[in-house]
């Protein structure tokens, strides 16, 4: 949503916070978060270890500037004034209203198997339809999962997928993470209706650090959709979430997300999948909001014939820097990856594709294809492409292609000669440009994404 609309329609709710930690991050804050959740010792240890690493790790020296991000001016833990509920009726009115405006309960009734909703640092709603529960599917708040399924969580939580020492903001995440989703799909179970979570950051100077862990056991299938938003505040906020996908043998996960944080949010998110033999992971990412985004979903194809397919669209408007891309590591024979990335820059926005494809000796017979397209709408907008291909074996095929351009005069002329205004014609062309991505989203999200793009394109002529 364009920020001028956000001021009108997306107001922060008031009086919904029960407890907020003090500004800034200290070991006390980390201990406080852990204690308030009654966590087992191993989790506290992980948090403290990560915090120690975070303190001595410098800020990244590459990519967009993070100068405006003052890590001492962030509240790392904001607990909403609500217990987690399985019924919208018992969610406090003000919080429910926010989610109703976002259309979450409505969508749940019609199109979803289960829904989770997080408000600031904690989940306020979680529900899974009974038929899936009966088949052994677990869909839980991550905090609850730590208590309820300690073995499963301990084995997969920041272990071989995203270790806590990966980079500075994952260290921060590991130290202060709160909320998020845990999904386990048992062997052979195919959840054919998507599960969804919605993350809402309400507090000023807030930080949201939700952790999503999805385990698709052998031969299972699951689709998961994530939506994110935050109202506009004057002070910067940070979102440093973490998504870990474990795709076991022959399993399939489709992960879709539309991130629409307000424009003073630093979205420094980490998403990664480890894929075993014959497993398939599909990433569908839409990045509209945020002032600065640094997000590079990664697939590690470690089992034979594993596949990764990723589709991404980024929209950079005035003052925005969308630094996104996909990474694939081919580490097993006959693995396949496709990456399709599209970006639109407008009003001085900067969008960058920063990708990485590697194929090691172990990846004989693997194939990778990367395709980036960038559209520059007006003067002063910027598009960058930084792909990196590291190929250490002769037994693979890798191809990368990118094009950058503006909206074609001829296409515009054609549509306008058919009676469309210039504005409408441009919007139609942009919609067509992002169509391959929109098409693969569930209906409500496709509608949301289209609306977002249309509202962002508003007034782009003249």
């Amino acid at each position, binding site marked *: 949503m364009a920020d001028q609309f956000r001021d009108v329609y997306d107001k922060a709710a008031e009086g919904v916070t029960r407890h907020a930690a003090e500004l800034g991050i200290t070991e006390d804050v980390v201990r406080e978060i852990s204690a308030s959740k009654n966590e087992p010792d191993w989790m506290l240890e992980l948090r403290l270890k990560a915090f120690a690493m975070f303190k001595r790790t410098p800020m990244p020296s590459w990519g967009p500037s993070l100068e405006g991000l003052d890590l001492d001016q962030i509240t790392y833990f904001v607990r909403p004034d609500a217990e987690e509920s399985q019924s919208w009726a018992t969610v406090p009115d003000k919080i429910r209203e926010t989610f109703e405006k976002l259309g979450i309960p409505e969508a749940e009734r019609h199109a979803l198997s289960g829904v989770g909703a997080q408000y600031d640092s904690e989940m306020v709603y979680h529900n899974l339809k009974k038929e899936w529960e009966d088949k052994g599917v677990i869909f839980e708040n991550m905090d609850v999962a730590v208590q309820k399924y300690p073995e499963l969580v301990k084995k997969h939580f920041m272990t071989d997928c995203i270790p806590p020492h990966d980079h500075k903001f994952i260290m921060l995440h590991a130290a202060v993470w709160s909320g998020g989703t845990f999904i386990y799909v048992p062997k052979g179970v195919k959840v054919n209706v998507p599960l969804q979570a919605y993350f809402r950051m309400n507090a000023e100077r807030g930080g949201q650090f939700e952790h999503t862990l999805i385990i698709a056991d052998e031969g299972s299938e699951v689709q998961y959709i994530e939506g994110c938003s935050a109202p506009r505040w004057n002070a910067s906020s940070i979102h440093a979430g973490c998504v870990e996908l474990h795709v076991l043998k022959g399993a399939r996960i489709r992960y879709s997300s539309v991130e629409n944080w307000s424009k003073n949010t630093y979205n420094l998110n980490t998403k990664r999948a480890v894929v075993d033999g014959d497993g398939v992971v599909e990433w569908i990412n839409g990045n509209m909001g945020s002032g600065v985004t640094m997000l590079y979903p990664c697939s590690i194809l470690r089992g034979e014939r594993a596949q990764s397919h990723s589709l991404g669209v980024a929209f950079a408007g005035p003052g925005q820097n969308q630094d996104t891309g996909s990474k694939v590591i081919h580490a097993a024979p006959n693995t396949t990856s496709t990456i399709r990335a599209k970006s639109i820059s407008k009003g001085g926005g900067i969008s960058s594709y920063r990708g990485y494809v590697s194929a090691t*000796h172990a990846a004989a017979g693997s194939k990778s294809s990367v395709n980036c397209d960038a559209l*520059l709408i*007006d*003067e002063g907008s910027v598009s960058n*492409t930084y*792909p*990196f291909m590291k190929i250490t074996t002769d*037994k693979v095929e*890798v191809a990368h292609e990118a094009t950058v351009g503006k909206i074609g005069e001829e296409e515009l002329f054609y549509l306008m000669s058919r009676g469309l205004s210039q504005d409408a014609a441009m919007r139609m062309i942009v919609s067509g440009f992002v169509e391959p991505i929109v098409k693969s989203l569930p209906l409500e999200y496709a509608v949301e994404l289209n609306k977002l793009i249309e509202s962002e394109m508003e007034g782009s002529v003249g």
Partner: protein
Amino acid sequence: MAMKLLKYGIGIFMPEAPEGFDLNRFASGDAFSYTVAAGEDAGTVPIDVPAGRSSVRISMGAGAKARFVEISEGPRESVVEIDLGAAAAAAYVSGSRAIMRDRAVLPANGTPFESVHRTARLAEGAKLEWIDETSTQDFARAVFVTRLEGEGASVEATSLLRGGGKQRFDVFHEIVHAAPRTTSNLRVGSVLAGDAKAIVRGLVRVEKDAPGCISRQKEETLLLSDAAEIDAVPMLEIGNQDVRCSHAATVGRIDAEKMFYLMSRGLDRASAESMLIDAFMEPYLAKLS
């Protein structure tokens, strides 16, 4: 050396480093300077760069034409600076003598170290061709920076890397479109066998005030052994909406179908392979000779 250059009528041997040359930053040693007067066609100008440190400075007046051919006798640490006046046209060709003689050889071993740094500035309507072949070094670094500063200037750059031993190549091509309607075409081909490794970076930048630019970038790599390695990094930084820019990178081995075709016509594996490697290199080698 001076005699040799004078014979071609266009070069002036200058023992001193040219003005504005930062001796601390770049290689010093023998310095060569070539000036081609406005409107003059100098034809082909051979440049015999000795082993060791050297610098070459080329300045061409409006409408001047020349083709410079640099042949190195040994490992170089050389700096080349080219200044092209309005509508001047130049080609700068460099390659090793051995390769020009014997096209099919994939060198297994080479000389120890080589580093070249080449920069060019182009005024309006000027045209430059970089043609480069690197193969005989164990460690070779080549940096090309081309600035298209005048409207309508264009650059075409082709680089061929070949290694069959333990070579390490590091090639960086930067092309800056600093003026309207400038065009660039960059093509880097790598044939890597044995334990050869290469990093190939290409960066095309279109500046904010440079509408109407067209740029193409292509990095193609043929890997012939499991130990060979390529890091391909074709980059774009586009600051003006009115552009047509594309880049492509491909990495692969010899096409199995083409091999089958040739072998079904009676060629043995080795000659079929060498024929296909030749075909891959042909567009590059054709420019060299």
